[in-house]
């Protein structure tokens, strides 16, 4: 079964600095998708960034970028120029196929990292 591990329960960073959140996963699949979601105090799940495993190029969305190391099964999120609005829980997620049901998939989440931005 696929598992996702976030080893940093909490992280903090000074405003305008850069922070990296770690994520590792375990899978036997060769083609898959990885995601980072942000959950602010409102608890709404917001997609931050997505990476397709077959793409060697790391995904980037404005101040957010990933370091995808497929062989190491590592998928870290880098937030540059941190802003107060970045404070939230961040979840790493793996999209897993559901065996026996063609086209069906599910998201498996890590335990999350609570990010605090210090002004």
């Amino acid at each position, binding site marked *: 079964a696929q598992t996702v591990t976030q080893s940093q329960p909490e992280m903090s960073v000074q405003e305008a600095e850069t922070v990296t959140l770690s994520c590792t996963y375990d899978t036997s699949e060769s083609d898959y998708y990885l995601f980072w979601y942000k959950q602010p105090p409102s*608890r709404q*799940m917001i997609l931050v960034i997505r990476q397709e495993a077959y793409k060697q190029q790391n995904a980037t969305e404005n101040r957010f970028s990933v370091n995808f190391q497929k062989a190491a099964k590592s998928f870290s999120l880098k937030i540059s120029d941190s802003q107060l609005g970045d404070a939230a829980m961040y979840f790493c997620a793996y999209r897993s196929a559901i065996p026996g049901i063609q086209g*069906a998939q599910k998201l498996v989440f890590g335990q999350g990292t*609570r990010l605090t931005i210090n002004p």
Partner: protein
Amino acid sequence: SQTIHQWPATLVQPVGSPLSLECTVEGTSNPNLYWYRQAAGRGLQLLFYSVGIGQISSEVPQNLSASRPQDRQFILSSKKLLLSDSGFYLCAAAQAIRGYTFGSGTRLTVV
């Protein structure tokens, strides 16, 4: 765009009472639907998923059940709530092109 309506936003229920949480999806057809539970300060645990009307799969044994009476309606139920059922419940929908969309969640407190 794909939108999920989930209600109620908050709910306080006594132990032993029934539960019905509803989730409806707009802007898509035949999505995969999911119920997740999030304990305080923890990650999301998948409870149920559905790939079509009347098709429900459970990920973990529990006191809850799910139903999908219509293509874009997903219901989470319990006949008798336990204290351990307290948590934050999120409905999600997925379709290959549109990816995943989450509802705004229901905070359930069982007292």
